[in-house]
């Protein structure tokens, strides 16, 4: 069995951070590092070396897509699986986010009890 995935979760809203941490750590048993902005994520990623990255699309400062773009420029994260998290999940938008290099789009609000399974499925796909 492979080691528990390390997940970097980038989200600016503290309340959602808390729930996501519960969902991923307690339910999923993942190791989770949470960043409140794209800038912070770029710094933390080097040290944390995530197996997978979850990016909120809309954040003040660097939004999700530009964070992804910056991450992809770093060789260490050129291939790290990334999923966007967003409330808008029109098929056209999903296709757009995937074209940016995301593996999947997770709809918000997420169900805390099933988020971990969703993430694991994306990670294993």
């Amino acid at each position, binding site marked *: 069995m492979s080691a528990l995935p390390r997940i970097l979760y980038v989200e600016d809203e503290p309340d959602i951070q808390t729930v996501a941490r519960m969902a991923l750590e307690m*339910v*999923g048993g993942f190791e989770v590092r949470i960043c409140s902005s794209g800038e912070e994520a770029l710094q933390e990623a080097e040290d944390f070396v995530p197996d997978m990255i979850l990016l909120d699309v809309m954040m003040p400062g660097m939004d999700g897509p530009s964070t992804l773009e910056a991450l992809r420029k770093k060789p260490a994260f050129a291939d790290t699986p990334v999923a966007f998290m967003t409330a808008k999940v029109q098929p056209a938008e999903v296709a757009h986010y995937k074209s940016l290099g995301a593996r999947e789009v997770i709809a918000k*609000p997420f169900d805390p009890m099933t988020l971990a399974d969703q993430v694991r499925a994306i990670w294993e796909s």
Partner: protein
Amino acid sequence: MSRKAVASAEIAKLLEQQRADYRARLPEQLTQLQKLADDLALGKRRQAILEELHQRLHKLAGAGGTFGLNTLSSRVQSLEQQVKDWLSDPVDTVDAAIWRSFASNLAQLRELMAESGHQAIAILPDATEEADEQAVRVWLVEDDPLVGRELAQQLESFNYEVCYFQCLSDAEQAAHTNCPDILIMDVMFEQAGENATKVLHRYPALKDIGRPLLFISSSDDFQSRVRASRLGAEGYFLKPLDVPRLINRLAEISEKRKQPPQRVLIVDDDTVLAEHYRLILLSGGMEVEVLQQPEQIIDRLEAFRPELVLMDLYMPEYRGQDLAGVIRQYENWAGLPIVFLSAETDLNVQIQAVGTGADDFLTKPISGTHLLAAVRVRIARARQLSAQISRDSLTGLLKHAAIKEMVDIEAARSQRIGKPVTVAMLDIDHFKTVNDTYGHAVGDLVISSVAMLLRQRLRRSDIIGRYGGEEFAVILPECSAEDACRLLEDIRLRFSTVHFNHEGREFSCTLSAGLASSRELPNHGGAELLVAADEALYSAKRGGRDQVQVA
């Protein structure tokens, strides 16, 4: 291969707590949004306000959905879309009436919040408070009615509420709907030809009642003792019963159950994670504080007096080992259990960390159940150890040093929760005469009868200590001077009616008491309250003894 690390019920409970917190903060958020919308209608800095509104509405839509406020969330989403459209359109083309209608739409969110608020699950009140004043309920299962009734009677005279069952199936029946505090069970049921330690599994409700279990038996056989221990029994007493010993054990057990909540200090720079651990420990009934500035660790230890420190190994400025080292430099914190929590899996690093003054190492990620169990067990062991050092052997009450420490803890707690604590000092009048006339053995009996009386009459949460020879100290948390005075008056009267017998000579004693309450003496720490109570005791003595005085 999904792995549920923590019981879903527990997570559901934590989530509900988060939800309640979020809902509590919602009105403030809506007020701020309302203010922005009003400014918008007034035509001030429109572009900047729209951007701010967009951010806030977006957050509200996302978080609201996460916390189950779905109607609110979708309504907010459409407001967010509206703002987004305005942002992409030149702002001055929009008519002022539209701003006003936007503001009034926003105002309607408040009603949605109220609706959702009704659905919020109420946090259940803690049942332990209510149980405080009640007698300890004992279930006695014994097939010999003579032995059963006799024992029940004796237990009742010690303030236990006894429910007597003549056979296991009657008790099993009762266990379906009811529950005692302690279960006492005979081993041999002659008529049924049953050995309770063997057949208890046939009575599942009784077996899994989850309460302390004591066995009484006329035969001392090793196999039954082993089976009793496997059933988790906390005692095995041989008949004919030594009732005082049995009572002692019952008192020990019920004391264990009425212990104050365990106190844990979390030191972690990650606020979200710290909050997460805090919620888990809170759900286990503990008192928890979080410290984010490691520099203040010693002050916080003094103020909160935790019984265990849970510390992240890696923090930005200091390592966990550094802080543990600092704590150990202070003599009074040398014994404080420190547990490191970290994702570090290198055993050598763990060993080294423990070598620098920590007691244990827990590896992240850790499940809630595991964390709770690890913390609970360590604090329980620390308490057990300190109880052995701090209890007086004659009375089983706290010794001088221990009661002084407790008074500090309770004074600090009283400040924290904003409820008064009252401290009382009691002294047996003319005790020296008793010793001189009847001998020390009788003197000891008088002392232990005061101890017994205090134990019986005071609440579960009160703390009783033997301060000196014939002097007692009592701490009454969340109790005003008036209530304390009434309580001690009652104890004084009862004590004066107790008749002691020695070689045919009958005598009785009286006691004096002085008390001091934090409400009347707000700036007093624990030690000062004790001094004030002691002074009140002396004025009771000077006033003619056999009385209670308030400082």
